[in-house]
């Protein structure tokens, strides 16, 4: 084979196509931004770190929803069920079993929520549309009612206050300012995100997109659709459970309101706001929502609720791809205009 042989047009096209796929998952520089911002917040707003931890937890919750809603196309209004399961796993483990090591608690919560996710998902993911939606709502509501029936164990809607947890890694004590909690939550989020990102860019992640785009076609090319859906549902449930566990640990408190239908609806709004199917939509949406809610709902809860409703209506009519989608379109327009 001569070294200086010119490549044919076809060979060039082949190479170019292959390169695109090989490079698709590389980190791009804007991806560093959310993490830089998160770290910067610690130094810029050191007195808002308890709030900051809750934002990070919501980001993680929204991220778990993006896996199933944004990538696999499963519409659920009951995802708070898994958040709650994780939250109560850690609470009950601490109270009843004296198990208060935080990191293993989070992992255990993930395992519990994930296992229940497999079982629930196996049954309900055979369905679509209204049937699936109702099953997810009913599942979450049933867990909440069950928790209320045994309020002797769960503390009911009054909750379980006064939970205590060991210092993180046996060293970092919790402080009144929530500094430890913030770094702890950020670390867990970073690890979880790393795994989620790998899944999304993997062939499995591609298959999920295929199921969302054209499930008929997936069946006819031999994809085990139900198995794929149950798998991603279980992973998503595990992550939601871990977010719930962090919630209990950082608040040292949990009540049955974590199972609220409202909570499921809220996390969906956050994700839609930021943009589904983009991973970072969870970051943008959860952060923006939480910050605005914190500022505005104190001024007037009624106006806040009206505003959120209006935002949803406008988003559906004019900005279906969320804030990130709007940003992307704007960016593309800017790039086009500045090109010669």
């Amino acid at each position, binding site marked *: 084979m001569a070294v200086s042989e010119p490549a044919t047009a076809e060979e060039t096209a082949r190479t170019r196509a292959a390169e695109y796929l090989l490079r698709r998952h590389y980190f791009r520089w804007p991806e560093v931004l959310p993490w830089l911002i998160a770290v910067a917040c610690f130094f810029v707003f050191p007195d808002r770190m308890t709030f900051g931890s809750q934002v990070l937890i919501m980001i993680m919750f929204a991220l778990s929803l993006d896996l199933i*809603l944004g990538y696999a196309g499963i*519409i659920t*209004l009951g995802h708070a069920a898994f958040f709650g399961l994780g939250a109560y796993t850690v609470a009950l483990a601490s109270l009843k079993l004296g198990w208060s090591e935080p990191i293993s608690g989070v992992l255990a919560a993930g395992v519990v929520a994930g296992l229940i996710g497999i079982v629930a998902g196996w*049954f*309900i993911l*055979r*369905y679509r*549309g*209204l*049937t699936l*939606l*109702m*099953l997810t*709502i*009913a*599942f979450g*509501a*049933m867990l909440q*009612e*069950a928790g*209320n*029936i045994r*309020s002797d164990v769960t503390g009911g809607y009054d909750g379980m206050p006064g939970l205590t947890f060991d210092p993180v890694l046996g060293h970092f004590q919790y402080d009144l300012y929530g500094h430890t909690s913030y770094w702890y939550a950020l670390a867990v989020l970073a690890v979880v995100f790393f795994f989620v990102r790998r899944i999304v860019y993997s062939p499995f992640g591609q298959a999920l997109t295929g199921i969302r785009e054209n499930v008929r076609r997936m069946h006819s090319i031999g994809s085990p659709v139900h198995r794929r859906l149950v798998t991603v549902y279980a992973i998503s449930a595990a992550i939601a459970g871990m977010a719930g566990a962090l919630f209990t640990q950082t608040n040292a408190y949990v009540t049955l309101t974590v199972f609220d*239908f409202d909570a499921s*609806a809220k996390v*969906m*709004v956050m994700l*839609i706001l930021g943009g589904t199917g983009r991973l970072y939509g969870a970051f943008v949406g959860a952060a923006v929502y939480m910050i605005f809610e914190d500022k505005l709902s104190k001024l007037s809860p*009624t*106006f806040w*609720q*009206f505003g*959120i*409703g*209006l*935002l*949803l*209506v406008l*988003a*559906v*009519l004019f900005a*279906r791809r969320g804030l990130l989608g709007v940003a992307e379109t704007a960016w593309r327009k800017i790039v086009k205009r500045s090109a010669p």
Partner: protein
Amino acid sequence: MPHWVTIAVSILFDGLAYAMFLFITSVGLSVTMGLMGFVNLAHGAFAMAGGYIVVSLTRSLGIDFVPSLLISAVIVAVASVPFERGLYRRLYKSTDLEQVLLTIGLAFMAIAAFTYFYGPIPKSVPLPHWLEGDVNLGFRSFPTYRAFLILIGAILITILWYAFERTNIGAKIRAAVDNRRMAESVGINVDRLFTLTFALGSGLAALGGGFAIQLFGLTPYFAVLYLVLFLIVVAVGGLGSLKGTLLAALVIGIIDTGGKYMFPQAGNFFIYAITVIVLLIKPAGFYGRE
């Protein structure tokens, strides 16, 4: 009479009244979802609005309760038309998710607006004398209000059944629910039919909302609180089916009443359990099309 019979009769009666409320409020949602496949989560807001209009009519304008119910139903029915024409129509071809989000957004806006005008404290309405107290049905006395609700429910069911099964329009609606494309190709104007059923369904929801004031108390959150319940009745009964909505309303109304009486701490557990069981066995509901 043995004690358990008395209890059973009470449960049946209260359950029946509850079922009538569920039917009246949900039947519109079932038909519109079955007809257009449009997920309307703002339906509860129409019921809530109907309730508040009754409150205003009776308290501020001094109109009697029963006429207020009718007037409120008509107002909401008429007001719902611009919503359908102007807003919903644009989303008939959209995904389920977009319809869910838009209508939830509308519901939030409605709740906020009504909280602003009426405040969050539960409202009640003044009832005419003849609706208060009990009515003696021979073997037992029952609360008049609920007996009246059951009576109205029965009358509405009869009218609706007749309209659906025996009239021309009813036949057109059934045909369009069954197969919209075929109905259009034989010249049925499905769009106009939908506006009609939507208005009718919203008006009935307002009627149900009006009745609900004295049963459950009325707050703006009624719109979302009971929405889940309406969705359950619709899903369990089967979209677009009058029979299904009625059967689901009866099952849920009676079992929930009984459950709450015998196991008060269980709350709504039984309703959700029924939902899951029915949907796992018959995913399209009792009388839904697969």
